Each structure stands twice: as C-alpha cells, then as structure tokens.
C-alpha cells in the first residue's frame, strides 16, 4: 500500500519551477532518495513534502493519519533560546507530555533509549547551542525519531557526522525500517552511499527530472542528462558505484 502518492507534483518557489511534474507511489517501508546538483531543488522538494512549502502544481497524498519526522539540512532551532537536548526531545513528544509536570516515565524511557542510540546520553542537560556540529546533528535525528513517526524525511542527515557513526546510523535506520516499517525519504550528496540503500529515486537536474524505481533510473545516459555531466555506472563487490567523467 502506498504511503505517499505524488500526482504531477511541481515544486519551486515564487513561481520559479524547479522540477517537471513528478509522479510516484511510494510503498510503506521503502526508501526514497532525492539527489541532484546544488540548487536543483532537493531541499525545496523535501519541504514541500512536509507541507512547509506549498506545491506550485499537482498533489501530494499522504496515507491517512500519517506522522512525519523531519531532520533539516541546517539546524533551524533558534540558538538564542537556552534549550537543552532534553527540550529538543520534548518538542517531538509534546502531545504526550503531562500538562502540569515537566516529564513522565514514558518520556524518560523514550528519551533514554534514543539518546543512548545516538551516543549522546551524557549531553541530556547540555544546551543545544553548546554542542558540536556532529552532536547537534545526532540530537536532531534523535528528535525526529523519538515519537516513532511512520515516515522520516531527512535533508543530508550525515552532515558533520564522523565516519564511524555514519556507518552505525545506516545500521540504525535499517533496524528501524525492519522493526517499525519505517519509510525513509532522504537527501544525500554521497551518491555511492545513497544509491545502495534506496529502492526509489528522484533526480532533480537542470536538464531533466527523473522519478521512479532506482533500477529503472540508474542508466548512465539518463543520469548524465539529469546531472548535465557524463558519468559511468558500474558494480563493484555488489555495490553500485558512480564516477563522473
């Protein structure tokens, strides 16, 4: 069953179109990758899917009562606020928090689990603005996941994350997909990483827009046209590799 349907969706801003009409039916539990050059509209597309930005044309249909989690490209939390990592977690669990008390056993348990998974449990009472870039990114991922949304939309989630934790994050995302039927929609500049993890692709390019199953789109001539540059696709040890010529 499709968790997301795009019908002739056109994204952009202030009447500037950034894509040709997109049509897609994304099944629950699959992973959709959004790739393209800088300024091609990847973040705009992601924000349009979340509802922050309006679509220029077409329709976005989410499954009923869908809960979305979102990791922005850059931290959007106003750093003037003395918010702690724990406050960040509260943002995502706001409806379930008690009105009169500051916390609940359910929240403490959920927070403890996610902070441990992100390896930042010792930063619970630290101010978000005092964290390093990588620590803040882990906190933002934790915030997006703590209430167990059905779909996780992530804009370059591996920014500032060290190599060791990036590998661990992919294993965490796989576990969440397997145990919770999580649907992932993510933007990533590392093509060799994302292409081996997704089942669906949207490629936004200056010359063409591609949208569909990864294996159908992963043709050198199509990708070259979308990126506006010649490239080579091959398999190495069972992994898809792309090289720009």
């Amino acid at each position: 069953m499709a968790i997301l349907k795009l019908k002739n969706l056109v994204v952009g801003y202030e009447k500037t179109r950034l894509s040709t009409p997109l049509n897609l039916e994304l099944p629950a539990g699959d992973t959709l990758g959004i790739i393209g050059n800088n300024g091609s509209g990847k973040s705009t597309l992601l924000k349009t899917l979340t509802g922050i930005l309006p679509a220029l044309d077409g329709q976005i249909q989410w499954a009923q009562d869908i809960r979305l989690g979102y990791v922005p490209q850059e931290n959007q939390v106003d750093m003037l606020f003395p918010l702690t990592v724990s406050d960040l977690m509260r943002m995502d669990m706001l409806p379930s928090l008690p009105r009169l008390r500051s916390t609940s056993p359910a929240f403490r348990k959920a927070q403890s689990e996610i902070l441990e998974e992100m390896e930042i449990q010792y930063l619970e009472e630290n101010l978000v603005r005092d964290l390093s870039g990588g620590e803040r990114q882990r906190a933002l991922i934790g915030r997006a996941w703590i209430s167990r949304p059905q779909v996780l939309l992530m804009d370059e989630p591996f920014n500032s994350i060290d190599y060791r934790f990036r590998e661990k994050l992919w294993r965490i995302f796989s576990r969440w997909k397997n145990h919770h039927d999580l649907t992932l929609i993510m933007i990533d500049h590392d093509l060799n990483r994302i292409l081996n993890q997704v089942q669906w692709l949207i490629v936004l390019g200056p010359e063409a827009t591609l949208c569909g199953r990864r294996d159908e789109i992963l043709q050198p001539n199509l990708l070259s046209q979308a990126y506006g540059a010649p490239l080579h696709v091959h398999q190495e040890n069972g992994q898809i590799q792309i090289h720009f010529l």
Partner: protein
Amino acid sequence: MFTKKTARFRYTFYSLFTLALIAMGPLFKRDSFELFFQSWNLWREPILAGILCGFLSSLLGVYILLNRIVFISLSLSQSASFGIFLTYFVAGLFGVSLADSPFAFVAGLVVALLTALLFVIFRKGKRLPDESLIGFIYVAASGLTIMLGDRISEGHHYVDDLLFGNSVAVSPLELKILCAFFLPLIVIHFLYRREFLFISADPEFMTIRGMKTKAWTLLLYFTLSLGITLSLRTLGSLPIFALMVVPPLIALKRAHNMREAFGVSLILGTAIPPLGYYFSFLFNFPTGASLIFISLLYLLASLLERSVLGQARQNTPRIRA
C-alpha cells in the same frame, strides 16, 4: 550538577542583592523607612498592582526578548494613545463630550490589541526583521497621536497615564480588575508554556508535527498585547518596557535552561516594582523613574554575577564521557 549549583547561586545572589537594597532604607533614611511601613495602607494597592504587573511583564518579556520584538511594548503604548485620541476626536465630531469616561481608555486598549493582531498577520515576510515592522508601527502611531492630540482638548491625562503611569492611584477595584485579567493570563502561560516556547524556537518543526503554529502564535501575541496594555496604565510605558527587557535580559544571559531563565526573570520582575515604590518614597524620586533606576541597579549587579560565575566556571573542569 554544575547547572543546578549555578541556578541556586543565581537565585541566592539576586535575593541577597534585593535584601541589600532594602537595607539601604534603615541605613541612610531611617525616618522615611519607618514612615514607609507605617503608611503601608496607602501603598498597599499600588505595590500589589506593581508586583502583579512586574510578574507578568517579566514572564512575557522572556518571549519578547527571545522573539526579538523588544520594542513591541512601546509600539503598543503609542497605538493605545492613538486609539484614545481617535475616540475623543470622533466623539468631538459628533458634538459628544466624553470627559473622564473610561470608554476612550477601553477603546485605546482595543486599538492596541488590534495592532498586535495585525502585526502577527503581516510579520510573515522574512526579508525584513520583525523589529522594522514594530518600528514602523511606533512611528506611525506616534505621529498620528501628535496630530490628533493637537486637535482635541480632552483625554490628554489618559495618554499621560499610559506613557508615564498612574501607579500611586490604584484603587482596590482596579487591583481586582488587574487580578481578574492577569491571573488567567498567568495560568494560560503556565499550562501552555511548552507550546509557546517551541513554536517560537522552531516553528517549522512544530508545523510538521501537526501544531497549528499560526493559531498558537496569535494566542501568544494576544496574551502579550493584553498583558502589556493592561499594565501600561498602572506603571506607564517606560517602566513596563524596562520590566519586559531588563529581568529577561539578566536571566537569559547566563541561563542553563528555560526553567532557570523564567525563574530568575520572575524573581527580578516581582522585586523591582515594590523596590521602585520604596526608593521613590525614601529618596523622593518620581515612581516610574525610580523603578527604572532599580532595574539598572540589577543590571549592574548582573555584571558582578557574571564575573563571579565566570571565575567559578574556570575553576571547574568540564568532563565528558
């Protein structure tokens, strides 16, 4: 643990500073000090009203500072002044004399509330900061107030009350009216503290999580404007501005979390008005100016707090797992 210790230190520091200010009475003006407490019945309602206004102003001031709309209280006071003069002007056109009718004052409050709502509606654009819109409102309302004020002879005392306050003339009835409006506002802010905080800190994320951020923003600004406009008549425009800026500024400078920020701001906001009256009585200062002076003393004290805390931080090693 470091965080809890510094919070306790801050509460203790400002409590001791408050006691030190009170002690200036018996030290330098013993007769006036004794007379102040002997004439408590004269000061009771104004001081209680001042405490209420100070508590609410310092609470709302945290949001005002964090949302970077520091001058909104001044803009709303000018809008209310314009509303009052407009009412008298229109009444004059129909040959009606409003004299000391409270209708004009209520109309002024309504204009201020409408101004706040218009601000929320039109602030969406990200090209210019909110303060530029607030500045425009301030200039426009001030100019229109001066133009209308030149045309009418009634209502000037109401506008003077708004700008400079009428804090020594608070009746028991006025105190009850303040309580009737302020207590629900304080309850609303306690019950929905997280909503107001999170929509201000990250409105995009909260929208994605299903919150109606526009409606919550409207409610926040409605409570801000109601609290500001009702406080204006008691304390005046400049003292309210001081209470909405100085306590939150001191509180937020070194806050380790929002609870500490609100706690320190409320302690200061509650202490400043009665100390303002106290110093006004002891040293014959105008009440509003005395209140602002006390705010400045706390600001100076915060510099001392900063150097003491900074020293403590240097001596404490930061350990991470």
